[in-house]
């Protein structure tokens, strides 16, 4: 039945951008009915027009992720407190070489996930047979890469909603990005990651730089002792100092 759904989808959506994939549900927690973890259909796309920026900014919020590397965080629960700048997000998307989006129509919030296992298999039948598409599904995963399409690329903003994590979706997103990059002969691919993200990227085949380079980021902030003549730019919670213009030197 799963195979039929896949072929039905393939004939309706023949484009190379789109793929219907199946991921294995987590299946943990008590289950009276004792059936196996369900296979969930997801739709993975590299077509940028499948992305609705509003939905994407909602996904950012659900994943507690920010485009800024040093976002303003609530001091108690470390949730991102800045709003997503939609215009800037659209700009970033239009200048990202690869954009991956994942859709599902079976995503649930965390408190519903244990209930899901109780639902008889038959109840979900209709949902399983109808292929999920960007228009009938919910955006549940995202990732993008920026590249000079010659030598290098960097991966940003990989995210999957909490209720569908640990099913291989994030890894699928990264692998799709890698596929797009290597098909253009780009092999120098970097990903900036926080401590929490490191294990994930290691599992995706990333590691420390074999050339032994040190990752550095511009982090110079204004010092208070220099009067009001410094120009600064806000980047999340940091106020970065803009290097001053210097006049020509005559020697």
């Amino acid at each position, binding site marked *: 039945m799963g195979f039929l759904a896949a072929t039905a989808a393939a004939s309706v959506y023949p484009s190379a951008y789109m793929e219907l994939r199946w991921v294995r549900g987590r299946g943990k927690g008590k289950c009276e009915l004792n059936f196996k973890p369900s296979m969930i259909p997801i739709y993975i796309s590299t077509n940028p027009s499948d992305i609705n920026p509003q939905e994407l900014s909602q996904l950012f919020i659900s994943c507690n992720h920010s485009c800024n590397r040093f976002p303003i965080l609530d001091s108690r629960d470390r949730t991102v407190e800045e709003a997503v700048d939609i215009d800037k997000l*659209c700009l970033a998307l*239009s200048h990202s070489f690869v954009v991956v989006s994942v859709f599902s129509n079976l995503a649930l919030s965390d408190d519903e996930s244990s209930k899901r296992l109780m639902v008889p298999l038959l109840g979900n039948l209709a949902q399983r047979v109808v292929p999920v598409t960007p228009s009938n599904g919910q955006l549940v995963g995202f990732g993008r890469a920026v590249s*000079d399409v*010659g030598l*290098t690329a*960097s991966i940003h903003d990989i995210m999957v909603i909490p209720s569908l994590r640990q099913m291989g979706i994030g890894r699928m997103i990264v692998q799709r990005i890698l596929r797009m990059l290597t098909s253009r002969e780009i092999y120098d691919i970097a990903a900036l990651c926080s401590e929490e993200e490191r294990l994930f990227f290691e599992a995706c085949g990333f590691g420390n730089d074999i050339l032994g380079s040190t*990752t550095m980021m511009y982090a110079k902030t204004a010092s208070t002792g220099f009067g009001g003549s410094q120009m600064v730019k806000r980047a999340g919670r940091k106020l*970065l100092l803009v*290097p001053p213009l210097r006049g020509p*030197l005559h020697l």
Partner: protein
Amino acid sequence: MLGISTRGLKGGECLCPIVSFGCQCQSSNQLLFSSNPNYGLSKTSRKLKVSRFKARFWESIRSGFLKNNSTQVMEAPPDLEEEEEEPMPEEFVLIEKTQPDGVIEQIIFSSGGDVNVYELQTLCDKVGWPRRPLSKLAAALKNSYLVATLHSIRKSPGSEGNEQRTLIGMARATSDHAFNATIWDVLVDPSYQGQGLGKALVEKVVRALLQKDIGNISLFADSQVVDFYRNLGFEPDPEGIKGMFWHPKY
């Protein structure tokens, strides 16, 4: 002697890529993604028009696919002629020296102009970097958000405008034009090092990026230049953020 170097040195197969994003389109997808050599500094109003065009273009694409179609129909796109103009490079003199024999040497900073890949290859040789395929180098330059160069211009007195122009430094940055930028390939001719030219290059690049509100500026520094960047305000592994690289399994 090595130049001030950042990462980005892998060799690879020499193959001209067909691209469909943000560059001179050679494929039939020209309709969707307009050409835009993304050299950042000089063309503020032009860039604004391009980004507005792209944003509005996105709107139109979206409105065709959303179920709740509440977006307006896109108005006619701005005249594409504006995008086909050659961007005026921003240039200014960094240092001017008069030699005892009367020759005036100027070090010119420039961004937004074309870089001759052969000249760049020569410069990379001088700093001791391994060679990279020229076509890939050219593609990388074309698709970088910002390419900043240093040239030495030598004018002999009485030579009536004959000048000798040599590429002596370069830095480039890739970016998504909004949040993230990575600085790759910073290099200065060894015979011009030690004068603060590398520092000026990087400062200008950072300044240009910040002025466009691009706040995540990263780079991958070789061990011998970590202090150089530290003095410019870069922090290693800030708040535990590290760069990881893909290790292909063959």
